Each structure stands twice: as structure tokens, then as C-alpha cells.
């Protein structure tokens, strides 16, 4: 049985086709675009909020998109345990929507960083990392100006206690350091999950690293994890997650 991915399209999303391609053409699963004005996720098994510049990044990244009609459906889907992945701007939207804790600041050096980085998978019990080895290092690209993750000391303690820090920026050997941190993110955070672990956000772009022809296929495992999670029966699927 194929897994159906819904790719949400906001005005200004620009990685929606890459996410669709990763799900449909690389993995051979089903994928559908869902416009942000829609209120139904069409029976999707997994939801992707793609990268881009929704609403031109006006006010703050993700600040306007969080009020899109589709976000109520995404919220219900997440509340029912459905897997939701926010990539880059999608991560920023999840933060603004309060589906994940924290906020983004401008990159430490104020530069828009567009390059391949190494990220370490620190938690493998999420639907987007289940197929990874613990501490597996992935080489995938980043492309952002506001990926400097910030949260309060209390919230950071909670993230650490609950093992919600899923991805960290590291060097090629898997060691986190100031030099390997491209944006000044607190404790080298590249991605986190919610307490229930079904909502994951990350700044790097796994959908841009699914084939060797584009420089790396390391990102593929993020999408394959959804299939693994579904096969393992640890995923709430369409029937029970649809509101």
C-alpha cells in the first residue's frame, strides 16, 4: 500500500515541487499538492510543509502563513498523531504556529547560507528518522537567512530532557562545534520534534538531497523513514488522523 504525502503550498513556497518529487518520483509513493486555502488534507498519511518564502517573509518568517486556512487541518492532523514535517520555511511556520517550541533569529553572521552541511541524527524514534542509525551523519544542503534557532533556557532544558533535539549541525566526523554551526543556532540545533514526536521541523533540505545526481542522496532516508514507520505500525495513518 502506497503512502500518501500532502505537500502544502503557500504563496511563496518554492521547494514544494522538490518535496513532491522526492515523495512521488524518488520514493514511488503518492503525493498531492494542497493549496493553503484548502481545509482538507485529502486523506494524507503524512504532511510536508515545504521550504520557500511564504508571504515574502513579511513581518517574520512564517508569521502570516500560520493563519492560512489549511493550518487548522494541519493542527488537527498533528493532534491526532499524524506525521508532520516542516522543512526550512515549513519549520519556521510550525514554530510560529506553536506546533513546535522556539523561534528563529537572523543568522549570526547575517549571511544567507546556501551550502551543503553535515547534520547528525540524534533521535531516531520519530516518523522522519526511524530508518536512520543513531548518530548517523547526513550531508544535506541548507539555504536560509533565518535559521538561528532560539528558545528560552527553561524550554531548552525541556527539549533536552524530552530528547526533542532531533538534528544537530556537526562536522563530517559527527562532532558539533561552533565552526560547524552555520547560523549560530543554540546548542547547534538543526531540527527538533514536539513532545509527542510526530511533528518534526528542520532547517536543512532533505528533499534537495535525494539523488546522487544533485550531489547527495542522504536526505532520502528522512522520507523513507515515514514508510518504515508505517510498516512498523507506529504511525497514525489517514483513517485515524483525519479530522
Amino acid at each position, binding site marked *: 500500500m502506497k503512502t500518501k504525502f500532502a505537500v502544502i503550498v503557500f504563496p511563496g513556497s518554492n521547494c514544494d515541487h522538490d518535496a513532491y518529487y522526492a515523495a512521488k518520483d524518488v520514493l514511488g509513493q503518492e503525493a498531492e499538492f494542497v493549496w493553503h486555502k484548502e481545509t482538507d488534507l485529502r486523506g494524507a498519511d503524512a504532511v510536508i510543509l515545504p521550504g520557500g518564502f511564504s508571504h515574502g517573509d513579511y*513581518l517574520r518568517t512564517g508569521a502570516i502563513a500560520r493563519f492560512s486556512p489549511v493550518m487548522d487541518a494541519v493542527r488537527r492532523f498533528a493532534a491526532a498523531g499524524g506525521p508532520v514535517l516542516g522543512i526550512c520555511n515549513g519549520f519556521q511556520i510550525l514554530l510560529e504556529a506553536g506546533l513546535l517550541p522556539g*523561534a528563529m533569529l537572523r543568522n549570526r553572521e547575517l549571511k544567507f547560507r546556501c551550502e551543503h552541511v553535515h547534520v547528525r541524527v540524534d533521535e531516531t524514534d520519530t516518523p522522519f528518522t526511524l530508518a536512520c542509525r543513531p548518530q548517523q551523519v547526513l550531508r544535506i544542503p541548507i539555504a536560509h537567512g533565518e535559521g538561528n534557532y532560539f528558545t528560552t533556557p527553561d524550554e531548552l532544558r525541556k527539549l533536552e530532557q524530552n530528547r526533542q533535539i532531533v538534528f544537530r549541525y556537526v562536522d563530517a566526523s559527527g562532532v558539533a562545534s561552533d565552526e560547524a554551526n552555520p547560523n*549560530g543556532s543554540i546548542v547547534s540545533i538543526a531540527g527538533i520534534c514536539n513532545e509527542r514526536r510526530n511533528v518534526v521541523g528542520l532547517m536543512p533540505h532533505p528533499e534537495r538531497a535525494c539523488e546522487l545526481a544533485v550531489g547527495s542522496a542522504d536526505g532520502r532516508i528522512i522520507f523513507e523513514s515515514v514508510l518504515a514507520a508505517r510498516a512498523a505500525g507506529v504511525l497514525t495513518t489517514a483513517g485515524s488522523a483525519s479530522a
Partner: protein
Amino acid sequence: MRARVFVTLKPSVFDPQGKTIVDALHTLGYGGVEDVRQGKYFELELAAHSSETARSMASEVADKLLANPVIESYRIEIDGTSH
């Protein structure tokens, strides 16, 4: 009525833009500028007849949209007189 809303990063939050600006000012010879914090400024035209109503409307939209409470705080000033 007009409300003016000033949104700034909380003191505990690092401001990369403010830091870059103060560095530039030092390069320009303004060593006396000890710190810069960058923020956002909004002018709201409100259909409100009292400054209390205006303040409460401005405060509601600041909470909901203009400021992100994780990293920012805001201050409101109300202009104009009631009808």
C-alpha cells in the same frame, strides 16, 4: 485613532542586526554608541472612539501577530483624541 506599536527583541535575545549596526558605527568613528538594538515600528489606524479601546485593540493584534512572544516584546502609544 492611531496606535503606534514598537516591537523589539527581548533584552535576553541576541540581536545580530543590532550588533552589525553598532560595529559599523564604530568603524565610522562613533565609538560613543555603546549598543544598538533593532526593532520594528507599526502605525495602526483604528476604528476606535476611546484611547482605552484603541489600546486594547492594538494590544490584541500585537499579541496575535505583530510580535512573537518567544523573542519579542512591544510597547504601545496612542495618538489622537476621542470623538
